[in-house]
């Protein structure tokens, strides 16, 4: 079960890395070509948000993996990590 979870996490993180790289590289190039333009701002903002959300997605996938395996103690630990992460999002954007 933990092997499956690892592979699923690997795919998620590869996807997160590629999207972040694409958006931020384009956004950074645009910063110098068209400074302060709305598309530049949008690319950088979305790129950084994907960067910040990827670790949360990693914890969510881990919680689901442990729940599916009925590994309740580890589902609890991972759920606690997720709860604390969400508290910081609420504190930052709430």
């Amino acid at each position, binding site marked *: 079960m*933990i*092997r499956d*979870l*690892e*592979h699923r*996490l*690997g795919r998620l*993180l*590869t996807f*997160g*890395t590629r999207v*972040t*790289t694409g958006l*931020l*590289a384009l*956004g*950074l190039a645009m*910063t*110098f070509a068209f400074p302060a333009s709305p598309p530049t*701002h949008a690319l*950088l*903002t979305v*790129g*950084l948000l994907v*960067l*910040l959300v*990827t*670790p*949360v997605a*990693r*914890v969510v996938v*881990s919680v689901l993996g442990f729940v599916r395996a009925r590994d309740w103690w*580890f589902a609890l*630990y*991972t759920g*606690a*990590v997720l709860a*604390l*992460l969400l508290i*910081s*999002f609420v*504190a*930052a*954007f709430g």
Partner: protein
Amino acid sequence: MEVVTPLTALVTLMMSMLSGSLGAMLGIGGGVFLVPFLILVVGLPFHQAAAVSLAAVIASSTAVSAATAGRQLINIRLGMVLEVATAAGGLAGGLTALMLTPHTLQIIFAVVALLVAAAVVRGPETPPLPHDADTGLLGGRFTDVRTGHTVTYAVRRLHVGLIASFLAGNLSTLLGIGGGVVKVPVLVTWCGIPMRVAAATSAFMIGVTATSGAVIYYGHGQMIPALAASAVLGTQLGSAIGLRAAARARARGLRMLLAGVLVVVAGLMVLRAVR
């Protein structure tokens, strides 16, 4: 410092490549190098430096874990147990800030880093386990990419790892780092975790640790987007380089590099404290 010049972006990208490759080799995010660089060279105030550094730590964690997942190196169970202590340490960071001045904190950090460096050089106390040994709930086995040997390990002295993780979370908020530089040496030296597993597991967790701090800084408008983008892209390039180097390096070589990093970090902390 709101306008990011191409030169600043380029210098930040190159420095992040360097810290990112060291980070990928050792399972530390590289924040311990980026924060002083951004303060001393780029001239950012602490909070903006910490914000950019934490973004780079997340990028390091995501890129390194994407590459190491599926190689039995990331111990997800151990990582999640330690992360609970790290998150608690992060919450207690505010209390520590009330009790200690940054100056005192940096001096304590420097002294502890030197002591840990000495312990890392001396090496782990645990002999390797036989292949059929019981690994316990948190232990595991993996195949060393360089030697082709299967290594079996069990976690010892979990409480020491939990205390180190708590402190790592505590320092993460206060210093703008992911905390891997605290966790990896302790896991290797006192908890019986092989170097490669400690590095991969730490790399997996520091992104989660850094996210709490990074979103708070982001929400307070302290994140400079173009500079964060430079640091993230540089870190991603550096991670690819560091991972290749780590696969070829001996585990002992990685430990010595880690000890060297701790000594440099101690020096940087003293520099920041007296400045």
